[in-house]
Every structure is written in C-alpha cells, then in structure tokens.
C-alpha cells in the first residue's frame, strides 16, 4: 500500500522534473530540475532496498555531477535563452516508433526470461551495504579497479582541458596583451 503510494508519487515527480529539464528554455531551470529529478530517482533505489545505491546516487549525482555542471556553467553564457531546433516530423515519427518498440520489448522480456535464476543471490541476515561489498570485492574486483583508473584518467583529462590559460585573467590584462592571447590557439 505505502509502496504503491510512494512509487506513484515519485514516478510523477521524476517524470515532471525530467520533462521540465528537456523542455525549458532556461539553462538554470534545467539544471535545478535535473538535480531534483536525481534525488527523486534515489527514492526508487530506497524503495527497492538498494540503500547503498541510493546513497551513492545522491552523493555522486547531486553532490559531484551537478556541482560540476554548476561550476562549468560559469564559463558559458547561460542567461541567454536557448534556441530550439525546428520540429522535424520525421524525427517525431522515428521517436514514437522507437518508444513503441521499447514498450513492446519491455513487456515481452519478463515472459521470455521466466527461467532466470539468480547468479549472486542476496545473502540472508546482512544489510544491503554488506552484500554489495561482498559481491563487489570478490566477483567484480577487476572491473572496480578499472573503473577507479578510468575516473583518475577522467580527472586528469578534465584538469588538462579546462585548466589551460587559467592563470590569465581577461579583466586584469591590458588590451594589447589580450589581443596577443586571442591570436594564439587555445589548444596548441
């Protein structure tokens, strides 16, 4: 009963927030609605008993990704209204076809896979975090380490790409220095 109420409430809220994200013409509204939608998504994880995943969702998405977007938006001109593409009817037809196929596949999949057995069944008597740790550090240890290296590479790449010319201030430079800097290529 309460599960159904929570599911429908958070489903409505999530769909509304993500709909605002893809339709609004203000970049700041889109960012705020996306952050709210991420938190509502974590509610589904808590309903499903995946407590650790819900906590990670809040920490990583609203804590790290949204903060990164918010800082990144300081570089861009976000006060301007976002122009939209003109509606192409072929795109709309393609989208609705794709969505219909997705719905059919989703209803067919549980029937096809009736005989699925759990590969790593949930362990009795321990919490979700402990279960996740037991599986992650035995069976999925190598992908875990590879993901750690990938995050390190992404961090270095982000610093190298965004940190170029960070020591120069456009407002404090005089005009001829600014012209000289503008003639240099940023990437070279």
């Amino acid at each position, binding site marked *: 009963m309460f599960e*159904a109420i929570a599911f429908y409430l958070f489903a409505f809220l999530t769909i509304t927030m993500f709909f605002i994200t893809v339709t609004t013409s203000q970049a700041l509204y889109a960012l705020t609605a996306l952050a709210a939608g991420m938190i509502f998504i974590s509610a589904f994880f808590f309903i499903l008993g995946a407590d650790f995943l819900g906590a990670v969702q809040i920490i990583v998405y609203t804590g790290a990704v949204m903060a*990164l977007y918010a800082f*990144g938006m300081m570089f861009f001109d976000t006060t301007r209204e976002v122009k939209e593409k003109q509606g192409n009817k072929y795109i709309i037809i393609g989208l609705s076809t794709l969505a219909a196929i997705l719905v059919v596949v989703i209803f067919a999949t*549980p029937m096809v896979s009736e005989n699925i057995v759990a590969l790593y069944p949930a362990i009795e008597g321990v919490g979700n975090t402990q279960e996740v740790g037991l599986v992650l550090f035995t069976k999925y240890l190598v992908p875990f380490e590879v993901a750690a290296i990938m995050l390190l590479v992404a961090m270095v790449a982000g*610093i190298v790409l965004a940190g170029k010319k960070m020591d120069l201030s456009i407002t404090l430079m005089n005009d001829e220095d600014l012209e000289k800097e503008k003639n240099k290529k940023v990437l070279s």
Partner: protein
Amino acid sequence: MMEIGLNHYLVLSTILFAIGLVGVMRRKNLLLLFFATEILLNSVNVAFAAISHYYGDLTGQMFAFFVIAIAASEVAVGLGLLIVWFKRHGSIDLDSLSSMKG
C-alpha cells in the same frame, strides 16, 4: 494496481528513457544535450535496480554502480572539452560544430 511489480518499474524506466531521447533529439545547446544524456543513464539505472530487486540478484546493482562511474567521468571530460570549445568559438550551439560540413 496496488501491487508494484517489475513491469511498473520497467514502464517508468521506458518513460524516462523516452523523455531523455526527446531531449537528445530536440536540444541544440550542447550543455542541455549533456543533461539529456544524464536522464538516459539514470533511467537505465532504475531498470537495473528493479531487476536486481525482483530477481534477488545483486548483479544489477553492480552494473548500476559502474554506470554511475562512467557518467561521472563522462561529465568531467565532456565539460573540459566544452570549455575549450567555448573559449575558441564563443558558443556551445551544435551549429557551430559543423566545421567539417558533414
């Protein structure tokens, strides 16, 4: 109606994925295209967690973790590239990316 099953979550995941697809199709601003990509990744995560719960299997949650890690690194690299592009061209519209005239 009152019993929430796997199909409820899968239908919700489809709806969110369709919303993300609409965002990818109709957005011109690259930053908002990134937002739509985040929606796509999150809708898949909901489906993973639901399947993991209803089949009593932890593999779905594991893959959701890796999807979150991939999304975080995608944002870091993508925003870096976007900042470099904005410094060179002063615009992050998709139209300014058509220098190869494809």
